[in-house]
């Protein structure tokens, strides 16, 4: 069954898009990530213009994080104050991201920046995760229980000024790194069409030492709000949010996420992280190959931006 997308201005197969949404939803439910970093490339590789793909994944991330946030709120596993600081910074970041996105699109370099950033970020994060999970797996094999947070360790971040107390996370830290992290996630999110959970979660754990049980709910709330802001801004500045495409993705994603979550609970944390790391590296590799190999067609046509 085909459906015509009003903003992308081309027909797509409903089942294919539903399937993509469901597959990415499954993975996001399984690993507790938004899945934007997989969904955006999938859409691009299946022929949706990159500008529409990026802008349309933002509302899809809003939908998938809404159901997650509700879950964590019920369990009181959200640090609202920390999320508040993150998302004020995040909104500023995402506004500048949308602006840069428009500039890049007009200059014809959007695809390049998307590809290079995906390759670099996913390669870096995937590589780090791979090492970390391999180390954790080796440790568990040796009989030591793996822990993500090693208490009592202080890094340079704890020496910065403007300290603020975050009660639920039991933290007393400087707001500077919080603002920087929030703003960069917001920026990356709107330029690359990713929620940024896969960067935000490790950043909160390793840099700010937020307790693991608070991290996911808090990062989901931050992602929800910054992506809502990004959706609004993409709609206003670039007019490339395709609501029909978004809705199909959301429905698929919500369903897939449920199965993914129950599947993920059956697996061990280190194994999950290893799998996720491999997945992220595979996407990074795909972008890298596209950039390095000589394309069959060197020319491309695009509408001239105003």
């Amino acid at each position, binding site marked *: 069954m085909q459906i*015509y997308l*009003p903003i992308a*201005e081309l027909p797509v197969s409903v089942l294919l898009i539903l399937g993509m949404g469901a597959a990415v939803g499954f993975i996001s439910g399984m690993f507790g990530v938004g899945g934007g970093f997989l969904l955006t490339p999938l859409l691009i590789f299946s022929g949706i213009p990159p500008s529409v793909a990026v802008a349309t994944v933002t*509302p899809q991330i809003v939908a998938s994080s809404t159901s997650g946030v509700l*879950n964590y709120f019920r369990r009181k596993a959200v640090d609202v104050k920390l999320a508040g600081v993150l998302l004020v910074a995040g909104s500023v970041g995402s506004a500048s991201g949308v602006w840069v996105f428009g500039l890049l699109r007009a200059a014809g370099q959007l695809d390049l920046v998307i590809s290079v950033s995906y390759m670099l970020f996913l390669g870096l994060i995937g590589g780090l995760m791979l090492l970390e999970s391999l180390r954790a797996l080796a440790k568990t094999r040796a009989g030591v229980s793996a822990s993500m947070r090693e208490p009592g360790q202080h890094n340079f971040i704890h020496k910065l000024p403007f300290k603020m107390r975050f009660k639920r996370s039991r933290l007393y830290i400087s707001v500077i790194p919080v603002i920087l992290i929030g703003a960069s996630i917001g920026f990356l999110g709107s330029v690359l069409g990713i929620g940024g959970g896969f960067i935000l979660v490790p950043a909160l754990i390793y840099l700010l030492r937020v307790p693991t049980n608070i991290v996911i709910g808090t990062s989901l709330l931050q992602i929800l709000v910054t992506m809502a802001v990004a959706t609004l*801004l993409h709609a206003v500045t670039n007019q490339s949010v395709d609501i029909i495409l978004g809705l199909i993705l959301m429905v698929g994603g919500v*369903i897939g996420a449920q199965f993914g979550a129950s599947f993920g609970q059956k697996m061990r944390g280190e194994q999950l992280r290893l799998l996720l790391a491999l997945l992220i590296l595979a996407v990074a590799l795909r972008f890298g190959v596209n950039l390095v190999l000589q394309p069959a067609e060197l020319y*491309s*046509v695009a509408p001239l931006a105003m």
Partner: protein
Amino acid sequence: MRALFAVVLLLLPGTALAEDLRIFASQDEVAISSNFNGIDIGLFGAIRRDRATVARAADYDVVVTVAGPPADLVVRRKDEILQLWINRASEVFRSVPSYFATLSNRPVRDITNDAVRERFGLGSDRVVLDRSAAGDAGPEEVELFRSALVRLRRSEGLYVDEPRAIAYPMEGILQARLHLPADTPDGLYTVRAYLFAGGVLLATDVASFEVVKTGIEELAFDVSRQQPLLYGIVAVVLSVMVGWIGGVVFRRD
């Protein structure tokens, strides 16, 4: 030059034409609805010969062009920089038809000469003639971009040349089928028909039809352009609702 002169004479108003040509599209409006996946529309025409005109030795040839709404396009070329393939040079082409079809009863180059083809834009290779607005590149360089534009549009099915698309079901009647692809742009399409005999243009006619989005597609597109903030708010509210409903329906605890 002489051919051009003859053509201009023929186009002058009030010139007595021995032959007359009419062209029609089978529909005035093509609706893009949610199940739109490209469409075929019929083109019909009639050739009428004045009773006083003697029958010509050569057969009639008909060329029909269909031009979609004009657009300003930019063509970019990738170059290898530091091992990476990156968009570098670009050329802007203004008022290029977003869709262009040339239908004829036999190859256009057999019907008439180059000057006429160029003058009337017969064939997708003849249509994008407007030179770059930037203009710092040499003509050979611009030509590379121009031919790339035509090649890309052809491979997308947006520029079509069908040298055997026009048939004559009976004398004086012509018919052709025009395929509009799934990603055909919306707007006004102009159908121009040219009647030739022995390479000489005898008559022309113009018709048009409109491709419009309808229903939810029209609504979504119009709101996204005219009320972008409202569109964004609706998108956010919808996403939160879908997420919330999903969370409630599949509540696990």
